């Protein structure tokens, strides 16, 4: 099972490090990362494999959300199927 982590907000030092640390602590494998700057906003999307994740999906999502709140960023964790179904035929 794979999930997409989307991080949106003001660019600061250490975003990727913090997010990937949490993923590593939960044994979620980071498969791909892309970063863009849209106007002033930093947007990072990360594809993670949560098949062997040591935490429940909800726990991982909540931990990332809390991390985002602390850094003033929005972090969304969503199952990959929603993007597959909405954006491919």
């Amino acid at each position, binding site marked *: 099972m794979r999930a997409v982590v989307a991080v949106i907000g003001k660019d600061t030092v250490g975003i990727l490090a913090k997010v990937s640390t949490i993923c590593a602590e939960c044994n979620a494998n980071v498969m791909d990362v892309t970063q863009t700057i*849209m106007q002033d906003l930093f947007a990072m*999307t990360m594809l993670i494999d949560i098949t062997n994740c040591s935490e429940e*999906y*909800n726990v991982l999502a909540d931990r990332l959300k809390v991390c985002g709140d602390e850094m003033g960023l929005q972090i*969304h964790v969503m199952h990959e199927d*929603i*993007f597959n179904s*909405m954006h491919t*035929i």
Partner: protein
Amino acid sequence: MFNSKDILETIKMIQEENLDIRTITMGISLLDCIDSDIDRSCDKIYEKMMRVAEHHVETGEIIEKRYGIPIINKRLSVTPISMLAAAAKGDPVKFARTLQRVAEGIGVNYIGGYSALVQKGFAAGDLELINSIPQALAETSNVCSSVNVGSTRAGINMDAVALMGKIIKDSAEATKDNHCFGAAKIVVFCNAVEDNPFMAGAFHGVGEADCVLNVGVSGPGVVRSALSKMPDASIDQVADVIKKTAFKITRMGQLVGTEASKMLGVPFGIVDLSLAPTPAVGDSVAHILEEIGLESCGAHGTTAALALLNDAVKKGGVMASSHVGGLSGAFIPVSEDAGMIDAVNCGSLSIEKLEAMTAVCSVGLDMIAVPGDTSADTISAIIADEAAIGMVNSKTTAVRVIPAIGMKEGDTIEFGGLFGSGPVMKLSSFSSSKFISRGGRIPAPLQSLKN
């Protein structure tokens, strides 16, 4: 890897444009709960519904979290209760109280199906049930009622139309201390559908499986936002962008529906391709019409713009889902749509224009507050007009009007939450009493010689 533009677009739709799953509604057949003893029948209903729908709300919450999509309502619909009332002699309100207990036990916000289908005549149980509606809706808070009074194949049962005018008036009177809310929980249909997931008109048709899951999507804000990026596009391009957006919205509904049905072990029924507005800013169907190019909803051209919108939503949605059904189209409730409320208040939208709009969209005159002193006959005549549009055009139409007791044209009645607030609208002051008092049936219309 996904295109990050697609990912950010989805997040923007959910976060900023109010994209959500409006409802997942589990339809439950109560045909096996019929009993000649009303108390025993109520016990069977309670037992079956609590068992079948036990994990309904929890499943919705798990899916919300997994996909990051809000699912606003988790609801249930049941077999029209008039069929159970037919076998069990006694006060049908007992059924409503049982449904209320189930709603509280499961944690769903509405249960639909306190209903009767009387398009061609009243069978045993129908009249008892209809006459009990005002009391049932006043005594319960989470039970919804609907009555089908006409169909393209049967014509319109004018006796039922006359009766429903009184029932709506009585329901408003019985709940006048609670914003006349009883009347907001009744819908009078022509060509009612059996798999509608939306309230207040949901019921579980007799042709349906024992238990089935239907999904209603939403997303007027997403459509409006997509259109706002192309101010100079031609109408063809407008139709195209609506289709593409509807496709994405519906795919999400299909995903949630299949996932929920897998988790619950209940067959997936349909996705209802509706654009359902809410009073939230930016979640308005009226604003889509204005984005297409009308100064205010209700201006000349509104019916054409709505016809375009409704058709494009269906065309986009049909390919996105394996089974489409329910009411499928753009809803135009007044009190639940900030743009409609503004249009009424500024004088651009009248009930006559709304009636014309219902000929080209889903579903009918919805959530319209009318003066408290409106006669039952006038309400019946509004129902008859609307039913005639549905009957002749082979489409579902409905009336949900709320007589605002003690209020007059220009006042505003507050319902709160998803129901919003409704400006009390002007009606014709001329009488329709003679027409309504005749009774009988309007014969089914000819299906050829279409002009």
